[in-house]
């Protein structure tokens, strides 16, 4: 994310839409992709990104410049994305998990073809369904955003050991799913 100056943040907090657009342009890429990985749905990610930026706009006046602006945005983004994901699950029960897909279709040629066709994207999406939103958040912040354990801890307001234990659990699940997919393929 490009550096956002204090002046831009203060102007945006005062209702300057052009200044807020500067913040949007700098942050929307990682916010959208974070939302996409956590909700695992493009329409939900678009809706979530809108919600996240409305919340950022509404809370800009409360940002005290004590922590990094990016970390502050990560916190809002992850919390909002997890809330949207949980709300949609409650409302529609639309979660389809990895096991259901494999049990329904097997590791069928269609799934295999789909995974190969859209390459890693589809496979990643499939793997993410095996993780809870909390595990997704940690793994995405680490693997895609490249945050350090300390930055993840600050962004999610959890201690370092919780970061470690969530990462470990997420990777155990991914490893197990990956092995299962390979075994089914054979």
């Amino acid at each position, binding site marked *: 994310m490009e550096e956002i100056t204090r002046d831009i943040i203060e102007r945006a907090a005062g209702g300057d839409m052009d200044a807020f657009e500067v913040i949007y342009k700098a942050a929307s890429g990682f916010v959208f992709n974070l939302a996409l990985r956590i909700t695992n749905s493009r329409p939900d990610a678009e809706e979530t990104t809108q919600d996240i930026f409305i919340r950022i706009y509404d809370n800009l006046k409360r940002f005290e410049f004590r922590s990094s602006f990016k970390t502050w945005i990560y916190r809002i983004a992850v919390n909002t994305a997890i809330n949207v994901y949980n709300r949609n699950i409650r409302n529609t029960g639309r979660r389809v998990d990895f096991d259901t897909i494999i049990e329904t279709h097997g590791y069928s040629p269609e799934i295999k073809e789909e995974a190969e066709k859209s*390459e890693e994207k589809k496979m990643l999406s499939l793997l993410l369904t095996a993780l809870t939103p909390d595990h997704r958040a940690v793994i995405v912040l*680490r693997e*895609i955003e490249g945050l350090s354990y300390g930055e993840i801890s600050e962004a999610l307001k959890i201690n370092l050991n919780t970061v470690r234990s969530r*990462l470990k659990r997420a990777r155990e699940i991914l490893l197990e799913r990956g092995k299962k997919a390979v075994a089914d393929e054979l």
Partner: protein
Amino acid sequence: MNCKEIKEILFTDYLDMQLDSQIMEQVRKHLDGCPGCRKLEEELRLQAVAPFKNAGNERVPDSVWFGIREQLLERDKPQERFSKFFLPRPALAFATVSIAIILVVAAVTRYNLEKGQMREYFTEQLDFYSSLNNGDDDTGSVSGTGSLAESYLF
């Protein structure tokens, strides 16, 4: 370090290069001499790390910013020009209901009043006609004339 300790470290700090150089060296030495732990490390990199490395970033659709901007502008827009001529909705609803109640009460009151006046009129008329039938002379000039005419004719 034994295999159990190595496995614990492999899942997190080793994969994420969070170890200091001395411990990292110890882990590497262990992996060189332990096929089981080396296999785990390879599987982890393949199944839990590699899928994210090539994930790439999706482009944000332009409609997202338009949606945000529209919502914020709509929300922060000053009240409509017409708002000074029209009351806000709750007040308007309250005023409408109040006026309706007043009209209904007025209509009922008027109806009752008119009904009372009619009843009084008919009562008076009935009294008058019944006095004619009785031939009562004390009912005033009109009934008196009627009685004289009756006496003359019949």
